[in-house]
Structure formats: C-alpha cells, structure tokens
C-alpha cells in the first residue's frame, strides 16, 4: 500500500512538470498586453514600460519561466496584477468558498445518488426504476447554467425564499450547491444502480438467496457492500468534476469562489493569478485521482497493488 502510494506520487511528478510548463505558456499565449492594460489606455510609453518592468514582463521568456519555477519552489505564486496582494493570499481568500460549495454538492450528490440508484436497482423495471433512470439522464443532460437560471427564477424571483447568490450565508449556498450537484447526482445514481444490478447477478448472491434469506437481507447484507466499492471511484471523479463545474456555476450565481476568480483573472490578463488558479485546479484533480486509487485498495481487500 505504502509502496503503491509512493510509486503513484513519483509517477505524478512528470505530469506536474508538464502541467507547470503548459500553464506558463498558456498564460503568455493569451492575446493582449497586460502592461498596456494596467497602465491605462492613454498612458505614455514610459508608464507602460514602467508597469511592464514592475510585472517582470520585460524579461525574456526563459527568465520569466525560471523566475516562476523558483517562486513555485518557495511556494510563492507571485503577485496578482489585478488585486494588490500575493496570489497565494488571493487564492486562499476564494478557496474556502469553492471548497465548501463543492463539498456540499458532493455530499448531496453522493447521498441522494446512491439512495436513488439502490432504490432503482431493487425495483428493477418498475415505474420507480423508470422514473429514477429518466430523471438521472435528464439531470446529466441539463446544462448547469440553465438549471441555475431556472432555480434563480423559481426561488429568488418568484418565491423569494432564497437569495440569488452570496457566499456570506448558508442560505446563499443552497442554490449553487444544488445546481452543481444535479449532474453528478444523475451520474452517481446510474452508476450505483448498474453496480448493484451487476453484483446481484453474482453466484454468491444467488447462494444467499438459495439458502432462504429474504430479498432485502440478501441485498443489504451481501450485495450492497460490494456494489458500493466502485461507487467510491465515481464519487471521487465527480468531486473533481464538480470543482471544475464551479467555473460556470459560480459565474451564474456571481459566487466569488475559485471558478469565478478564474474567469475574472483571465479577462483581466492577470498572469500570476491565472497561473496559480490553473495550478490549483490541476493539483486538486491529480490529488483526488491519487486518493481515490489508494482508497480503493483500502476498501476492497481483493485488490492488491503489486
């Protein structure tokens, strides 16, 4: 287990290097000149040059890259062009909001998704099964930006029971979290359903039935546990998916998290902030995949890593 974890960590190193290189060049490929943008439209060339120097953009690309990497090794992501603070504190300021949002959405999606998936599998081919499967695929197919607008209209404009946005209150989290959760909920429900159905088809489950156990006991005692193991993978993947989904959902709700900040920073050509944000998104993704793979072995003793 430990050896496997270490091996995976080592494998992640070249990926990370690639990620850092890609991010650096992506940011510099953005059209527009940040120095001119921040100096103001009618600034004289000297001012523009001064801003360029202040941002460190007067140096050659290799120099800038070396500076970026040197900063990274110290955990320093540079200073944001737009906000007058370091990128690390800028990220820290918005990270919590997104983490809370994505976590709540994951909890909603997992609990409801597993519950619905199991219910559907237990009553296979019934009306309930059909309703749950239809609702799941509808949830997966609905664009989050449309669902968000729909919920805003229902609960904020018509019923006036929930605020449109704001990461200030728990109430302000409800609509964005539900919007974010729906697509994953559908995916998890479908996955849980098919996983349980597959498990039920196994010989040992038939044996349990053959020795006279009731159907609910067969499912609860024998099938369910094994059926839920692969669900762990999908939940992990969905958590990563949700984090990226925040880009659109946070824009719809004007929710000031990482996704919202990314769009703002890209528009403002805030190179250091965009670099930091993309790095955080990629890191989250890499870490989640790693944790899911390791966790998988902890839960399922049948899997060995060597």
């Amino acid at each position, binding site marked *: 287990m430990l050896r496997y974890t270490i091996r995976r960590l080592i494998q992640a190193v*070249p990926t990370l290097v690639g990620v850092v290189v890609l991010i650096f060049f*992506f940011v510099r490929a953005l059209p527009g000149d940040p120095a001119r943008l921040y100096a103001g439209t009618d600034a004289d060339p000297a001012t523009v040059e001064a801003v360029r120097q202040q941002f460190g953009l007067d140096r050659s690309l290799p120099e800038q890259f070396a500076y970026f990497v040197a900063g990274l090794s110290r955990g320093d992501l540079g200073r944001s062009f737009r906000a007058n603070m370091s990128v690390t504190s800028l990220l820290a300021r918005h990270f919590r909001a997104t983490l809370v949002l994505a976590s709540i959405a994951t909890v909603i999606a997992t609990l409801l998704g597993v519950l619905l998936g199991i219910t559907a599998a237990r009553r296979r081919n019934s009306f309930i099964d059909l309703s749950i499967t239809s609702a799941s695929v509808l949830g997966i197919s609905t*664009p989050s930006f449309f669902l968000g*607008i729909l919920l805003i*209209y229902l609960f904020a404009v018509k019923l006036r029971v929930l605020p449109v946005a704001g990461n200030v209150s728990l109430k302000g989290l409800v609509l964005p979290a539900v919007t974010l959760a729906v697509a994953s909920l559908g995916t998890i429900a479908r996955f849980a359903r098919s996983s349980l159905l597959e498990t039920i088809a196994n010989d040992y489950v038939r044996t349990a039935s053959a020795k006279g156990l009731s159907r609910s006991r067969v499912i609860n005692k024998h099938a369910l546990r094994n059926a839920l193991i692969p669900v762990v993978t999908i939940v992990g993947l969905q958590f990563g998916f949700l984090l990226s989904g925040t*880009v659109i959902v946070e824009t719809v709700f004007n929710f000031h998290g990482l996704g919202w900040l*990314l769009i703002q920073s890209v528009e403002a050509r805030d190179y250091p902030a965009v670099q930091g944000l993309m790095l955080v998104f990629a890191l989250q993704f890499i870490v989640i995949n790693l944790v899911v793979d390791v966790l998988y072995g902890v839960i399922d003793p049948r899997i060995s890593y060597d």
Partner: protein
Amino acid sequence: MTESLERPRVARSAFSRSVLGRLLRHRSGSLGLVLTAFFIVLAVIGPWVAPYGPATPDYTLLAAGSSSSHWLGTDAFGRDTFSRLLAGARYSVTIGLSATLIGALAGGIWGVLAGFLGGWFDNVSMRLVDVLLAFPGILIAIGLVTITGPGVGPVVFASAVFGVPVFARLARGSTLEVKTRAFIEAANALGMRRLGVMARHVVPQVVAPVLVYATLRSGSTLLVASGLSFLGLGVQAPAPEWGAMLSDAQLWLAVQPLMAFAPGVTITLAVLGFNLLGDGLRDVLDPSIRV
C-alpha cells in the same frame, strides 16, 4: 428467417441493419435516435422554416411572452425567439457534432499510432495525455478559446481538443488489446507491412468503440460548447447560438423568463437526445464500455 436462407445478404449490410433494428427496439435508445435525427434535420433546414429572420427586430414587441404570432415570445430587441432557436440549431448542433467528430478523429488517430508504434512515441504521447487530463476538461476549452478569440471556428477547435486526450487513451487501449490477437500475429507472419497491418486489421477494430464513445460524448461536448458561448467566450451575441441566447436572457429573467427557458429547454433536449442515443448504442454494440 426463411428469406435470409434463400437469399444470403452481404454480411455488412445485415450487420448495420441489425444494429439499427436493435437500437429501434431499445426503449430509450430509439427516443435518442429520434431526438438526434430531429435536431440534425433542424440544423439543416432550421433557418429556412423559421417564420421570421433570426435578426429581424420588432420594436413594438420587446421581451414579449408567448402569442399566436410569436410562439415562444420575443427577446429584448423584439426578435422572434422561436425563429432564433430554429436558426441557432445550425450553430449549436453543428458545433457540438463537428467538435465531437474532430476530437474523436484526432484522438483516435493519435491513440492508434501510440498503441501500435509503442516505444518512445507511446511514452511521450501518454505523458502528454496525462498532462492534458490533469486539467478539468472545461478549463482546457476555456483556455484555448481565450487564446484564439471568440467565433464559431475557435469554439469547434476548443471543444474538439476537450475530447482529444480521452479519445486518444481509449483508442490506445483498444489498439493494445487488438495487437495481442492471433490474426495480427498471422498478418505479421504472412509478411504484411506494419502500416498495412495497422490500416487493415487494427483500425477497423478500434473504430467501433471510438464511435460509440463519440456518440456518448457528443452530449457533453455540446454542453461545453454552449457553455463557452454562455460565458461570453464563444460564439458572440448577434448569432442565435443557444448558449449565447441564454446568456442574453439572464438580465431579463424577472421580466420575461420565457426568453431564457426556451433556449435552455432546447439545449437540454438536444443533449438528452445525444446522451440517450449514446447509451442505446453502447447497450446494443458494446456493453463493456463503461463511462
């Protein structure tokens, strides 16, 4: 049955006929097929059957609700929403489908080459795929479209790249699996050239899973493409792209919700159609692909 005994059909045509037949018997798959066909037809004939021009304003009827002259109301400029949706199919559906196909083709070729050639090319390719997959897909699309600037071409490109690493990995996996089969060994033993083996024996085996996955993927590609336009990064305002329409309608939500609901429901139906068709195709052709 007796008929086929008397008159043997060409294997391929019987195969494709049976796929379509099985798909039509698949409950949700047939619904997906109908929906998808509907939207593809709409993309072709949409602008011609629209009662009004997509950019024709009626300044006496701004942000109006449903009426006999404007079934789905009008937008903030008095343009007929129904006509705009019909004309917009040419943007949204075409972008979604072509981006999926280009992504599947590029990723598929890359994956087959990596899997078949192996060696350093395979190593470098897969490290690159790892790097691309380390980013949430939509982030890559957003990044690319910001670099290229807005427009139809850039959205197709960005949404296509969104799929490339996934298709590359899938095609490589299928190629590696095919490579171990006996008929490849036989072809090699017969002295067939490597390129010939790849084209004649490997590629046909990889096409089916890639195609099934492309259908499965077209829904999410459409979501990403319209999402880019919704964010204001993709197809720009006067064009009746559905995501852009939804974005414009946001400001008018309290005044005229229909303006947002109409494109929203349309996108959902189109994505639903693609997803149902993809699920159906997978069930019929290759139940082993798990997504």
